[in-house]
């Protein structure tokens, strides 16, 4: 597919927002992406699950955090991370009547800035499953009742206690329609709303499930990362617990494009990154999903795999990455791309290294190391 004209990376220079189990960091690059400078820790010791810049107001950055002792909250900066203030009303479920067991937000897992037409709106996905919305830039959050309080919700998701709790993630808002949203649920499959969250339906046809489960039950589906192409919003990609998939709406059945990956590598992994302009170009970071699921680089040889034809073929990209004895694990939020030309790619691994490529994955270099366990990396422009 022909690429759209080159776009700049917003204003400013690229920066990687790094969320770790022990705090957040900002890795700021120069205009050429050749030299990188790591910030001091931000909220050192806090478990930061996501750190995201607002593309509609780039001085705004939100952080989803908790500590080992203290409950979950959201911090907000309006000056590119110089100072932070805490949400006055963080995401929380309704209190239930005495004698009933109510849900408690353990952590906010995912942050997505709202539609371009709705400044100040963000959506947050939580563990256990929950969807929350702010209309004031992150100061006060309320539940999206059509999901959180829907009587069908227990039948949709949450049957499978994934490590560290079930997660609502991959909130994708259609740039053509603020009320059209796709989300991923681990577990619970992929869901779509066309009315801003009042009603929901599943998109799980064509997805494989672990042997022994009933694939018609959405609760056993585990999409690890779902991405919608910003310039072709009817195209969705998904890195699932059971393979890599593409869906071109209005079709309803996912196609397992991971079948075209090398057999010895497989198509298991967590993150997935889309080219900002070319809807046919995708990068994944495969992991070992054999036997006991080590979730490490297959064979101890880390590599990114790329497709430029919407998943019909894949190419190994490991230039500059360790050639052996490197057991990287990259989580679902821990890989991102900038919007420069050529596209820059970045991933963070659980052993605390951030790697980057200035040429769409052909050659990689280590940009930062000795960080805590990395949960997420997101591109920003500062």
């Amino acid at each position, binding site marked *: 597919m022909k690429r759209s004209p080159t776009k700049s990376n917003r204003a400013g220079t690229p920066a990687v927002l790094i969320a770790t189990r022990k705090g957040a960091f900002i890795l700021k690059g120069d205009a050429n992406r050749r030299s990188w400078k790591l910030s001091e820790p931000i909220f050192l010791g806090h478990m930061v699950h996501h750190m995201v810049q607002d593309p509609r107001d780039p001085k705004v950055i939100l952080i989803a955090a908790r500590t080992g*002792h203290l*409950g979950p909250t959201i911090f907000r900066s309006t000056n590119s991370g110089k100072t932070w203030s805490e949400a*006055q009303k963080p995401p929380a479920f309704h209190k239930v009547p005495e004698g009933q067991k*109510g849900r*408690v937000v353990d952590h906010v897992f995912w942050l997505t800035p709202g539609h371009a037409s709705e400044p100040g709106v963000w959506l947050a996905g939580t563990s256990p499953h929950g969807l929350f919305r702010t209309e004031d830039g992150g100061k006060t959050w309320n539940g999206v009742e059509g999901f959180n309080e829907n009587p069908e919700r227990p039948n949709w998701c949450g049957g499978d206690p994934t490590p560290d709790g079930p997660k609502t993630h991959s909130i994708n808002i259609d740039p053509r329609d603020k009320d059209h949203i796709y989300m991923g649920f681990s577990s619970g499959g992929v869901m779509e709303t066309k009315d801003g969250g009042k009603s929901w339906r599943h998109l799980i046809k064509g997805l494989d499930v672990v042997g022994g489960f009933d694939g018609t039950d959405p609760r056993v589906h585990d999409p690890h990362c779902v991405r919608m192409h910003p310039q072709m919003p009817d195209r969705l990609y998904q890195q699932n617990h059971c393979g890599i998939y593409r869906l071109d709406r209005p079709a309803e059945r996912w196609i397992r494009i991971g079948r075209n990956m090398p057999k010895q590598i497989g198509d298991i992994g967590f993150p997935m990154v889309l080219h900002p302009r070319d809807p046919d170009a995708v990068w994944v970071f495969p992991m070992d999903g054999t036997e006991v699921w080590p979730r490490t680089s297959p064979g101890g040889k880390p590599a990114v795999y790329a497709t430029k034809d919407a998943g019909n073929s894949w190419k190994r990209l490991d230039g500059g990455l360790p050639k052996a004895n490197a057991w990287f694990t990259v989580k679902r939020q821990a890989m991102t791309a900038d919007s420069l030309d050529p596209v820059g790619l970045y991933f963070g691994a659980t052993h605390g290294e951030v790697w980057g490529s200035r040429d769409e994955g052909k050659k990689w270099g280590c940009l930062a190391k000795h960080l805590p366990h990395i949960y997420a990396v997101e591109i920003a422009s500062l």
Partner: protein
Amino acid sequence: MRVIIPSSLRSYTGGEGEVEASGSTVAELIVELDRRYPGLRFRVIDEQDALRPHIRVSVNCEIVADLSIALKPDDEVALIQAYSGG
């Protein structure tokens, strides 16, 4: 009464490790602390009004589980981070 604040909550109290506050019960005391130090309560008590799993409260050095326990003006209350690993 004297309230001991753990290090993790001192960002709310302006760095103070001890504050004076009042309340007829532990629950009311924490509401009063939240009034003075907005945001503090939700970090230690969840939306179902239960203590967070790794937070403890002691009254005169005795751990209490019931937040409705009555307090006297000369009691000493401590919010405690439970030992919970690395």
